[in-house]
C-alpha cells in the first residue's frame, strides 16, 4: 500500500464530482501519478531513507517504516497544533486569563484508549513480518558466516556450491584510509572476495564468531544478525534482483570494527552455477585447501545439526 494512493483516489473522486470533463480528470491523474513518481524517486535510493529494498522482508520493513512515519506525523501535527495554538493565543502578554480546570476523566480515558488502538494497528503487520523473518526452514542453500577480528569467513554448507570456503576482507587500501590517496567510490564497503549467491533462492545464513560478537548486516536485504562466539544463530534472505549489496559489521568488535564490510553479490542462476563450478575447481586444484575443505565439511555437518537444534528452540 502506498501512502499516496489514497490521496490519488481522493483526487480522482473529487474530479467525479466536478463533472465529466475528461481533460481535468486526466490532468489530475497525471498530477497524482507524477506526485507518486516524485515521491518514490525521493524515497527509493535517497539518502534520507532505507536503501532500495531487494527482498520481501526488506520491502516489508520499508513499507512499515513509511506507514509509521505518516502515523507519527499525524500525531505530531495534532498534538503540537494544539500546543502551538495555545502558545500563540493563551499568553499572559495578550491579557489572557488562565482557566482553572485540572482534570477530566473522560478526556483522559479517551487519550489512553486511542493510542492503544493505534499501537494495535502498528503491531499487526509487524507481527506477521517477525514470524516471516524467523522462518528459516527449507532453504535452497545454506552458508555459514563466521565473524573474525576483523573479517568474515564464508563456508557454503548445503545447496549448489557446497564445499566453497573463503575469507572476505576489506579491500580498501590503507593509503585511502590515512588520506594519502583519493578515496574510491566504494570506500570501506569493498572486499577481496564477495559472498556470491543466486538470485531468488532462499539463502539461509548460519552465523557464529571466532572471538567476540560481530553482526552480519546487509541493509538492502533486510537482514541483521549478531554472530556470537560459541553459539549459532541463523537468518535468511532471498534476493529479488541480481546486483551487489553492501553492508557492514553492526556490533562493536574492537579496533577495526569499522573496517569489516560485507558484500553480497547476487548473480543470475546460470552465472552463479558457473561461478560455483569455477570456485570449486580452483579449490580442488590446491591439495592443501582440499584437505582443509574436508575438515570444513565435517565442521559443516555439525554446524547444520546445531543450527537445526537452535531453530527448534526458537
Amino acid at each position, binding site marked *: 500500500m502506498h501512502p499516496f494512493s489514497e490521496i490519488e483516489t481522493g483526487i480522482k473522486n473529487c474530479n467525479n464530482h466536478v463533472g465529466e470533463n475528461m481533460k481535468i480528470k486526466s490532468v489530475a491523474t497525471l498530477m497524482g501519478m507524477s506526485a507518486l513518481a516524485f515521491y518514490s524517486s525521493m524515497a527509493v535510493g535517497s539518502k*534520507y*531513507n*532505507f*536503501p532500495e529494498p531487494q527482498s520481501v*522482508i526488506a520491502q*516489508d*520493513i520499508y513499507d512499515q517504516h513509511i506507514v*509509521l*512515519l505518516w502515523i*507519527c506525523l499525524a500525531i505530531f501535527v495534532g*498534538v*503540537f497544533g494544539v*500546543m502551538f495554538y*495555545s*502558545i500563540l493565543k*493563551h*499568553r*499572559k502578554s495578550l491579557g*489572557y486569563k*488562565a*482557566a*482553572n*480546570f*485540572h*482534570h*477530566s476523566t473522560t*478526556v*483522559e480515558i479517551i*487519550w*489512553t484508549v486511542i493510542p492503544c488502538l493505534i*499501537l494495535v494497528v502498528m*503491531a499487526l503487520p*509487524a*507481527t506477521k513480518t*517477525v514470524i516471516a*523473518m*524467523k522462518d528459516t526452514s527449507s532453504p535452497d542453500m545454506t552458508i555459514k558466516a563466521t565473524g573474525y577480528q576483523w573479517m568474515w569467513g564464508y563456508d557454503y554448507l548445503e545447496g549448489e556450491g557446497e564445499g566453497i570456503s573463503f575469507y572476505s576482507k576489506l579491500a580498501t587500501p590503507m593509503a585511502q*584510509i590515512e588520506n594519502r590517496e583519493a*578515496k574510491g567510490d*566504494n570506500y*570501506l564497503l569493498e572486499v577481496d572476495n564477495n559472498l556470491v549467491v543466486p538470485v531468488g533462492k532462499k539463502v539461509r545464513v548460519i552465523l557464529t564468531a571466532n572471538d*567476540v560478537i560481530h*553482526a552480519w*548486516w546487509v541493509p538492502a536485504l*533486510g*537482514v*541483521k544478525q*549478531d554472530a*556470537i*562466539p*560459541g*553459539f549459532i544463530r541463523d537468518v535468511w534472505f532471498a534476493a529479488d534482483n541480481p546486483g551487489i549489496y553492501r553492508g*557492514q*559489521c553492526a*556490533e*562493536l568488535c*574492537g579496533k577495526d*570494527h*569499522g573496517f569489516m564490510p560485507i558484500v553480497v553479490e547476487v548473480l543470475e542462476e546460470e552465472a552463479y552455477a558457473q561461478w560455483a563450478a569455477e570456485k570449486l575447481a580452483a579449490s580442488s586444484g590446491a591439495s592443501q585447501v582440499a584437505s582443509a575443505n574436508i575438515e570444513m565439511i565435517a565442521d559443516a555437518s555439525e554446524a547444520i545439526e546445531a543450527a537445526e537444534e537452535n531453530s527448534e528452540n*526458537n
Partner: protein
Amino acid sequence: MAAVHGDVHDHGHDDHHPTGISRWLTTTNHKDIGTMYLWFSLAMFFTGGFLAMGIRAELFQPGIQILEPELFNSFTTLHGLIMVFGAIMPAFVGFANWQVPMMIGAPDMAFARMNLWSFWLLPIAATLLVSSFFVPGGAAAGGWTFYPPLSTQGGLGVDMMIFAVHILGASSIMGAINIITTILNMRAPGMKLMDMPLFVWTWLITAYLLVLVMPVLAGTVTMLLTDRHFGTSFFNAAGGGDPVLFQHIFWFFGHPEVYIMILPSFGIVSEVIPTFSRKPLFGYSSMVYATASIAILSCVVWAHHMFTAGMPTVAQLFFMYATMLIAVPTGVKVFNWTATMWQGAMSFETPMLFAIGFIFLFVIGGFSGVICAIVPIDIQVQDTYYVIAHFHYVLVSGSLFALFAGAYYWIPKWTGRMYDEKLGKLHFWLSMIFFNLTFFVQHFLGLAGMPRRIPDYALQFADFNMISSIGAFGFGLSQVLFVYIMIKTIRSGEKAPEKPWDGATTLEWTHLPTPAPYHSFEKPPVFKPTVH
C-alpha cells in the same frame, strides 16, 4: 551565608559551619551536598562533552585524521559512561538534594552523613574513569555497554572502569535509599503521598528503580571481573558460559536506567509548565499513575536492546508489545502537559522555554522510540546512527533540557539572585538549533546504513556527518554560555524578588524566603493541600 540569613530564623539554631574546604568535606547540609552534586555533574558534563567533541572532530570527514580507531573507541565508551553516570544521574541527585526536603517541608535528608558519603564516592569513581586513559592499554574501549567477550579482552582500563561502576552504583543506591526514606518519613504533617509535588513523586519512583536495578549492574560487572581475572566463565562460551547472558543482565539494569534518567525530568517539567501557565497541572493523579506504569513497564522491556542477538519469535513479540505499551503512559504525560498549557496565561521565561523544548524534542525521541520498538524496523536500525539520534533526543533534549529548565527555575531560590533573562533565552535558542543540527541528520545516517561506533565511514555519509559535527561544536560552545550565565548569576546577579514566579505553588516558594536559608523547615510548615 550565615550572617546574611541569621535574621530570617526565629529559632535558636545557629547556622555556623566551617568555611573553606572543610565546609565541603564535612558538611551534612542537603543544600551544600546538592550544590556539590550539581558542580560535579557540570564538570563531568564538560568532560564527557570534550570526548564528544573529539568523536565529532574525527567524524567531520571520512578517513582517519585525529583519533586512531582504538582511541576513538575509548572516546565513545567513556563519553557514554561519563555522561550517564557522571553528568545526568548526579545532576538529578543534586536537584533531589536541594529540592526534595524543601518541597515536602523537611529540614534535611534522612541520612545526612550517608548523603555526604554518597557524594564523595563520585569524584573517586570519576578519577578512576578519567585516569584510565593514561594507563597501559588505554581506557575501556568496548562501548558503554561493555559486552563480553570484547570487554574481557581489554587491559587495566577495563578493570578501572569496573571499579568505577561499582563505586558509582554504591553511591546511587545510597542516594536512592536516602531519598526514599526522606520522602516516606519526613513530609510536612498533613501532606499525603497524593499531595506531593510531581518532582517528588517522580524521584520517589526513580529511587525505587535505582534500588531495584543498581545491584543487578553491580552483579554483572562483578561477574565480568571474575571472568577476567579469576577463571570463571559466566560469559565465556568455551567454558560453558553465555555471552548473551551478559546482555540480558546488563539490559535488565540498562533499560530501567534510561527511565531513571528521564522520570525526574518529567518531574521538573511538571513543576515548570503549571508555574508558567499559571494554571494547576492537568491530571495530577494520572501523571502519578503514568509515571508508575512507565517504571513498572521499564522492567519488562529490556530485550528490545537485543532484537538482533537472536531470540525465540515469542520472546521478540513479547518484548515488542511491552515496549510499544510504554508509549501509552508517555503519551498521557504529553497530553497532560498540553492540557495544562491550554487556556493558561503563559509567559515564556527561560525555564518555560526549556520545558517546551523538552516536550517538543522528547516527543520526536518518543516517536523514533516506537519505530525502534517494531522488531522488523529495529533489525534495520539497531546499532546504527538512527539509534544514536533516538537516544540523544531523549537524553539530551530530554534529560538535559529538563535539567536546564530546573536550573533556571530554582537558581533564584538557591542563590537569591536572578539569572540574566536575555542570556538564558539565548542559551535556549542556541541549544535548540545546534542540538537539532547535530542529531536530526543522524536519523538519515542510520536509515541509509551507517553503523554506530565506527571511526571512519563510507563516502555517502560524508555530508550529514559534516553537518552533525558542525552542530555538535556549536552545541558544545553554547554550553559554555550556560556556565557563564550561572557564574554571573551567583556572583553579580540582580537580587531576586521573594517570589520571582507568580504561578509557583510548591512549599519552597510559598513558605520559604528567597534565598532559602541554610537550614530550612526546622519546624515543619503547616501544609494545606490544594485540590487535584
